[in-house]
């Protein structure tokens, strides 16, 4: 049982080896990580395809543009960059409008001049004011003397293709070995605490992930989609769900704040992120998010400014906690490979599903499109990212392989069917040819048995000069009748499946009677012919044993009857001066022996029509030998006479 199961399984494995090979190949291809770039790209596509979102009104970006820098330069000094005093003045103005929190996302290297003390005083006075450092290499330290709780780092992890798709939440920094918050996380934390009283705690499902109220921020763990196989995931990170809006955030210029101090409405209770947007003094980070960001004049290549990236990262936490907006999470490695395997098998099944290649292709198209749609809808509603590309690839490759295989199978079957048809046709031709041959043999046999014998007798009588015109006339009339009989008999026999009667001379002998009775009738009929050698016969000794259990077909009986008639006829023709005829059908255990014996003088010069004694009868006997698996022999007797014997096994004739 187990063995047959195993051999069945082995058989199946061999049959499906191509499909299994394809699945294994794609699984290992995925394991090498070469498909990661495609999956990241697919993630970008999903992000771009989302519907438009509203402008984030909890965040205000303050742009320190070139115009403002120029004005400040003119006011304080000629040095490039931003004076501490100018920044302190701007910050003072912003804080006066009671924002929820203010972040100065300005690296210390861009600051110069006096007024640092004034700025530090503001930090002491307003705990909601925070600033940044760059914590990862190359490090940029913060403004000196800022307390740790008012510091956050503004680094972003960058993917291998140079794009930003992730953000840090908190992380150990390389050198200080202490946990620090990223700017976006710190801003969200401050805002949620101050405005909504929602504190941060360790995640319920994942203790390493932070949780605000009931909402856990999904942590990008090692070996998760779409970063499978990427070992460059450090700290606590999450994927950025960019806000889908042309101008996702409200932004005003620093000049506007200076000129119009009445910005309360726009600043109050908001997260204000202040950053330099002047192209000369800032760098941008690449994202694949193509939306138009800050004003046209601020565009810097394909990149996104730091403050905007921070705003996206902050905004996604706020909106997930407050608006229930979905955050992006990837499925784990196990599920990912499981899913891939499933689609591999589904592809195999799909490829075999239909014999029509067009139906299969249509099915594949629908399945592939459906798969992609389902992945997209899941992503859209829950943020769960199922990698569609590799699964699509798997589905398509396996389905195509099996479509080709099944097409080849169909072609093979068609060829086999065609071959069978040809074989049958050949067999048919063969059997028809044999039938024809049999028919010709029958015709010859019957002409030979009747008319030819009669003709032979007549010719001999004419030769011997022992006939008269009147006798010849009667014989010719008999001949005429016999030829007609042959025609009628053949016509009748050809209309029925099995032979029913044997025609000898002008006598029809029923083939359905038992063999011994048939043989006796053949014997009687054969002796009625007017052969000269029959006239001298004094003693005719005959006996025919019944067959017993063995069965013979009518055709076999026909052959045996014709053989006996022919053998007796030969005595009449050739056994000159014979006085005794012995015809025996003897059944001895499992053999039946048919013998015809005479005591005549065997002259070879007498026959003028039918050849010598090894004529038609011998030919027939040889045929019988092979048909009935028997033996035939002829022997000269001493002092004179002739005997021919046909013997066959009843055992084997039963199986003929």
């Amino acid at each position: 049982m187990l063995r047959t199961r195993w051999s069945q399984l082995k058989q199946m494995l061999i049959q499906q080896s191509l499909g299994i090979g394809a699945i294994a190949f794609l699984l290992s291809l995925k394991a090498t990580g070469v498909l990661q770039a495609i999956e990241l790209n697919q993630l970008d596509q999903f992000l771009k395809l989302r519907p438009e979102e509203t402008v984030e009104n909890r965040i205000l970006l303050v742009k320190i543009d070139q115009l403002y820098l120029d004005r400040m330069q003119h006011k304080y000094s000629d040095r490039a960059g931003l004076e501490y005093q100018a920044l302190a003045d701007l910050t003072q103005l912003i804080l006066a409008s009671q924002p929820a929190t203010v972040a100065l996302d300005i690296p210390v290297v861009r600051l110069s001049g006096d007024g640092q003390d004034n700025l530090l005083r503001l930090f002491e006075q307003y705990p909601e004011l925070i600033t940044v450092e760059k914590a990862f290499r190359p490090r940029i330290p913060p403004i000196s003397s800022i307390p740790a709780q008012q510091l956050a780092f503004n680094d972003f992890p960058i993917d291998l293709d140079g794009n930003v798709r992730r953000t840090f939440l908190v992380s150990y920094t390389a050198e200080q070995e202490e946990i620090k918050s990223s700017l976006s996380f710190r801003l969200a934390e401050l805002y949620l605490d101050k405005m909504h009283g929602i504190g941060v705690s360790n995640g319920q499902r994942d203790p390493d992930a932070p949780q605000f109220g009931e909402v856990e921020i999904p942590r990008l763990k090692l070996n998760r989609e779409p970063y499978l196989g990427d070992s460059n995931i450090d700290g606590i990170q999450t994927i950025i769900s960019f806000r889908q809006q042309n101008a996702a955030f409200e932004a005003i210029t620093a000049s506007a704040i200076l000129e119009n101090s009445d910005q309360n409405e726009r600043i109050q209770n908001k997260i204000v992120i202040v950053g330099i947007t002047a192209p000369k003094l800032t760098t941008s980070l690449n994202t694949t998010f193509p939306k138009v960001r800050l004003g046209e004049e601020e565009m810097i290549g394909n990149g996104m400014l730091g403050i905007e990236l921070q705003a996206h990262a902050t905004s996604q936490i706020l909106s997930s906690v407050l608006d229930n907006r979905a955050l992006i999470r990837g499925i784990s490695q196990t599920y990912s490979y499981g899913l891939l395997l499933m689609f591999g098998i589904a592809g195999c099944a799909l490829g075999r599903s239909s014999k029509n290649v067009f139906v299969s292709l249509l099915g594949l198209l629908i399945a592939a499109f459906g798969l992609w749609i389902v992945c997209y809808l899941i992503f859209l509603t829950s943020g769960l990212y199922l990698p569609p590309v590799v699964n699509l690839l798997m589905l398509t490759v396996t389905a195509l392989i099996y479509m080709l295989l099944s097409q080849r199978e169909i072609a093979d079957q068609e060829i086999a069917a065609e071959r069978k048809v040809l074989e049958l046709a050949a067999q048919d031709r063969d059997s028809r040819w044999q039938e024809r041959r049999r028919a010709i043999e029958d015709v010859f046999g019957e002409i030979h048995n009747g008319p030819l014998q009669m003709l032979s007798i007549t010719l001999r009588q004419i030769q011997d000069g022992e006939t008269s015109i009147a006798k010849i006339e009667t014989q010719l009339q008999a001949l005429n009748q016999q030829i007609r009989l042959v025609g009628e008999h053949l016509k009748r026999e050809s209309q029925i499946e099995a032979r029913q009667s044997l025609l000898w001379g002008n006598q029809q002998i029923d083939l359905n009677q038992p063999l011994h009775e048939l043989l006796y009738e053949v014997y009687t009929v054969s002796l009625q012919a007017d052969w000269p050698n029959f006239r001298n016969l004094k003693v005719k000794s005959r006996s025919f044993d019944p067959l017993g259990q063995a069965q013979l077909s009518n055709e076999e009986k026909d052959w045996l009857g014709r053989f006996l008639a022919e053998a007796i006829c030969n005595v009449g023709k050739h056994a000159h001066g014979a006085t005794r005829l012995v015809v025996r059908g003897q059944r001895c255990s499992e053999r039946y022996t048919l013998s015809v014996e005479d005591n005549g003088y065997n002259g070879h010069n007498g026959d003028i029509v039918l050849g010598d004694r090894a004529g038609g009868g011998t030919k027939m006997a040889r045929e019988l030998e092979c048909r009935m698996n028997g033996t035939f022999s002829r022997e000269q007797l001493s002092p004179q006479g002739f005997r021919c014997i046909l013997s066959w096994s009843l055992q084997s004739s039963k199986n003929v």
Partner: protein
Amino acid sequence: MGPQLARILVVEDYPLLLDGIVNLLEKHYPDADIWTASSVRETWAQLELSLPDLVVFDLAIPTDEQDQQQAQPETGIRLLKQIMQQYSQLNIVVQSTYTKALVRIIPQIDEHLGGFTIIEKSRSSQEVLERIESARRGYTNTQEIRKLQSGVEVKPEWTDVLTLAFQEGLQDRAIAQRMNVQIGTIRHYWRKLYDVLEIDLEAERKVGRNLRTVSEINARHKGLID
């Protein structure tokens, strides 16, 4: 007149002829129990009831009494064959106008162990009675059909018996041993040979001739032995 018979069955469908033969039999065998049958069905019924010592048989009989068709000798031939197959010891007399038809069952007659005689219907009562008595004694007389054949037709075993008896001078018991059969079988062969050799046993006995010697003379004459 003649010896007594316990039971005789007469198979004949023509009432006039039936009466004739029954009268003849009653006269010749006054103590015999004579039964009649006029169809195949009746014949079987009588045979199954009680096996007769002698059956006088007409070949042309109908299958049963209601049969509207004319009586066919074919039917009688078939019946005769079946009866001989089933009751091989039964003494049978066939009287018919179609005795020629019996040529076809010569092999069956040769095998039949009981008496078997044939008589044309046109023969005299005396001749009919002779054949009946022959059959009753278990003899065979088929001269009516044998005269239709050219030469002598025998079974090989019979000529073997002749050869062993007259060329080797063996007694029946020794012949039976040589041929590896029962002595009864040899006697059966002799009865058949007497028929073939046209020996009228009753007549020969009356004249007082030795049957063996007559047989040898006739056999040589007919070419059965050299």
